[in-house]
């Protein structure tokens, strides 16, 4: 080694230490400070996470609560390996995944000072699964299906709870780790969460000024010593998109709303304020086509398949999302998701031929076999929700369908009517968006493809697929389960059960002083704020 090289060594070491240095999260966290976070609409219904299915409630309500277990807020990818204990200190699967035992933390207090015990856990999950002897009932119970496999919840002692399952279901733990699975207090009526919040979480509700903001303060009695770092959180409700963006740009907001920032908006923000930290991340929300399989013409599988072949997904990603989305099947694709089919698995599925013209030709052939020709086109009414992100996608799809002889007229449905109409099956074909809580096959398949599920809007029902879904749910070998999940996704696309068009990507934006707020592959699970600190 010559002298020059030896002399260069210290600089090389410095350079290497910079390059290999852990990310900013390894800085020593500081206590104090308040963050202003963006909300785009009012919390409805208040903090009652169990009565809603919208991120607008989960995001601002999560800091008030704890789950039994949670996806590690410091790890961006959610899987069974990233689950950590919250109210449960540890847990154990027993009897070949038939019994799930939680050992609860001691000394945990609700925000009103009462002690947390196994009674609260039993109360919450008996209410959610609508047990015959449940002491309370929710007004609306959107995720009842998640807990359908629980036969009993037993409070063995004040600090031990056993979930007894009808059949093995390793995925239950993932659903319990979602932001949608907080533990409610047994001594508080569930309805009271619509107006206030008694949780065990790192932050206590200070004030909810309707239509303006929700403010939390640090919970001094929080069971994790030294947490949370922040003194408070303020979620500002800003209805106007332009104002939200201006407020973020001006530094009045420290954190954007998850799922809010499109690729174009992110580029504008970065140009205006280069120091903003923008992280592309999956929303776990997909664009899809629902077709009523119980009504003509979509009771004909050939017509459904023709629709799926006709839509050029990659062109849609560019035209509608300016590249801010990924193609995939019914679970979020890699690298954002864990279970989804990747690019190499998609060719061969409807809509993914190398040449879009080939797909169109297949679609026209199928239409001809179904009795429709350019002289005798199929005329249908396409419904969509009267919101820009729905309408943009629907307009693109209508244009694609026209190219294969399907003339669709667009009917916009107001929000108040959208879900009643979809649940009733009062439509022919629709352009839809579906958000999924945890990135897990059980949470998705049973809800959106299960026979008789109220959110299975297409009313697709296949005995074969049903069996496969059960089989993967009970599969204990992770590798085999992945294979089964891949097979189900391919089958669903081949059946055009609910053709998936793309998976949207959020460009989650924060100011650089916001530390440890790491977006996950699902927007519903990283809002606890326990580890977040401010370097201001």
């Amino acid at each position, binding site marked *: 080694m010559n002298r020059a090289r030896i002399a260069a060594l210290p600089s090389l070491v410095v350079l290497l230490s910079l390059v290999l240095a852990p990310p900013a999260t390894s800085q020593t966290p500081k206590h104090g400070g308040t963050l202003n976070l963006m909300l785009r609409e*009012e919390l*409805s*219904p*208040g903090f009652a996470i169990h*009565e*809603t*299915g*919208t991120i*607008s*409630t989960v995001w601002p309500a999560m800091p008030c609560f704890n789950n039994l277990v949670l996806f590690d807020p410091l790890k961006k990818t959610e899987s069974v390996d990233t689950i950590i204990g919250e109210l449960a200190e540890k847990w154990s699967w027993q009897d070949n995944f038939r019994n799930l035992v939680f050992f609860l933390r001691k000394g945990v207090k609700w925000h009103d000072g009462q002690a947390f015990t196994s009674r609260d856990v039993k109360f919450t999950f008996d209410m959610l699964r609508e047990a015959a002897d449940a002491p309370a009932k929710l*007004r*609306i*119970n*959107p995720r009842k299906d998640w807990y359908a496999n629980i036969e009993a919840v037993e409070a063995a002692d004040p600090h031990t709870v056993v979930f007894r399952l009808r059949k093995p279901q390793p995925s239950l733990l993932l659903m319990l780790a979602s932001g949608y699975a907080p533990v409610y207090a047994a001594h508080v009526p569930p*309805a009271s969460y*619509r*107006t206030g919040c008694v949780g065990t979480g790192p932050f206590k509700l200070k004030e909810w*000024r*309707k*239509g*303006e*903001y929700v403010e939390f303060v640090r919970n001094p009695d929080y069971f994790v010593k030294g947490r949370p770092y922040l003194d408070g959180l303020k979620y*500002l409700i*800003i*209805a*106007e998109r*332009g*104002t939200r963006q*201006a*407020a973020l*740009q*001006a*530094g*009045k907001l420290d954190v954007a709303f998850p799922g809010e920032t499109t690729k174009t908006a992110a580029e504008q923000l970065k140009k*205006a304020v280069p120091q903003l930290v923008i992280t592309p991340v999956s929303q776990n929300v997909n664009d899809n086509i629902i077709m009523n399989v119980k009504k003509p013409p979509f009771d004909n599988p050939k017509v459904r398949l023709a629709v799926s072949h006709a839509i050029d997904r990659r062109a849609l990603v560019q035209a509608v999302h300016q590249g801010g989305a990924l193609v995939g099947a019914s679970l979020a694709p890699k690298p954002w998701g864990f279970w989804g089919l990747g690019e190499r698995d998609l060719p061969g599925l409807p809509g993914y031929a190398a040449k879009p013209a080939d797909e169109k030709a297949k679609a026209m052939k199928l239409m001809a076999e179904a009795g429709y020709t350019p002289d005798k086109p199929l005329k249908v009414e396409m419904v969509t929700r009267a919101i820009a992100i729905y309408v943009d996608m629907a307009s693109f799809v209508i244009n694609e369908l026209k190219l294969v002889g399907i003339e669709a007229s667009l009917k916009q449905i*107001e*929000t*108040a*009517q*959208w*879900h*009643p109409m979809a*649940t*009733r099956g009062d439509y022919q074909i629709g352009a839809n968006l579906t958000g999924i809580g945890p990135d897990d096959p059980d949470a998705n398949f049973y809800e959106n493809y299960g026979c008789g599920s*109220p*959110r299975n809007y297409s009313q697709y029902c296949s005995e074969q697929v049903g069996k496969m879904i059960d089989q993967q749910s009970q599969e204990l070998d992770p590798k085999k389960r992945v294979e089964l999940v891949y097979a189900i996704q391919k089958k669903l696309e081949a059946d055009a059960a609910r053709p998936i068009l793309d998976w949207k990507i959020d460009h989650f934006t924060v100011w650089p002083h916001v530390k440890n707020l790491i977006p996950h592959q699902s927007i519903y699970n990283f809002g606890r704020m326990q580890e977040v600190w401010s370097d201001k």
Partner: protein
Amino acid sequence: MKTYVLQRLVIAVLTLLGMSLVIFTLLRLAPGDIVDILFSTAGYVSPSEKQAIMKELGIDRPYWVQYLDWLRQIATGDLGKSYRYDLPAWQIIRPLLPVTLELAALSMVFAVALGVPTGVISAVRQDTGLDYVLRIFSLAGLSMPAFWLGMVIILTLVTWLQWIPPLTYVSPAQDLKLHAVQFLLPALAVGYRSSALIMRITRSALLEVLREDYIRTAWAKGQGGRVVIWRHALKNAMLPVITVIGIEFAFLIGGLVVTERVFNLPGVARFLVDAILWRDYPIVQNLVMFIAIVVILANLLVDMLYGVLDPRVRYGS
């Protein structure tokens, strides 16, 4: 005058009663209800659960029972309970009223302060360069929607100063200066449009009056320009201007939707749109009634001012 006021008050009460029926009916004609919206946030609808919630909220009862119940509530000062918030409607509505009333009043003050003098100058200097400039200025005000102007103001402030007005309501007691800033910018955006309208009406009304014989007589008597314009001409030209001001103020109470959204002010109009989307009947019904009351009071006030400004107007005598 007393008889006239009494007559107008009786008519006002009857109008409000008619309004209540119209509001109630139109709201029920809109498709969907609060229960559909509640399920919408959950992503599905369960018919049996829907029925239970409708019963809980009392919207399963016959319409006429619901209507009479609402009238009874108004008469007793109990405005019912918000479906969306599960709280007394008055508790939700009360903080909204001062915000909108203040914004509308400030906008009108700005509009009158700008619109009337420019209208007078424009009329007096008819067909001069100044008249053309002022007319273009007013035409621009009429052409630019207030929400667009509001957004331009916000974006300009952010881009140039990295500053934006407060995003939550700041009461005068909290910080008077910040409160003033918070209301001044939207008032300017809204008031500019109204001032343009007032300016044009003032100008045309004044031009008409200035051609009257008595104005020529005043000039012939050698009276000063200021006296002729401000005392003789403007006073008589003000009747249509007052009418426009009354209509504009009433319009602003319910018409500030987009401005309140852009400046993130928690006022009546923004909340009303939200409540309509949620089919929150108790909030919508009572807010629209509030707007109706303001419109009727504004009209009443305008009629009273006619009598004050024009001695030829003698009501009830």
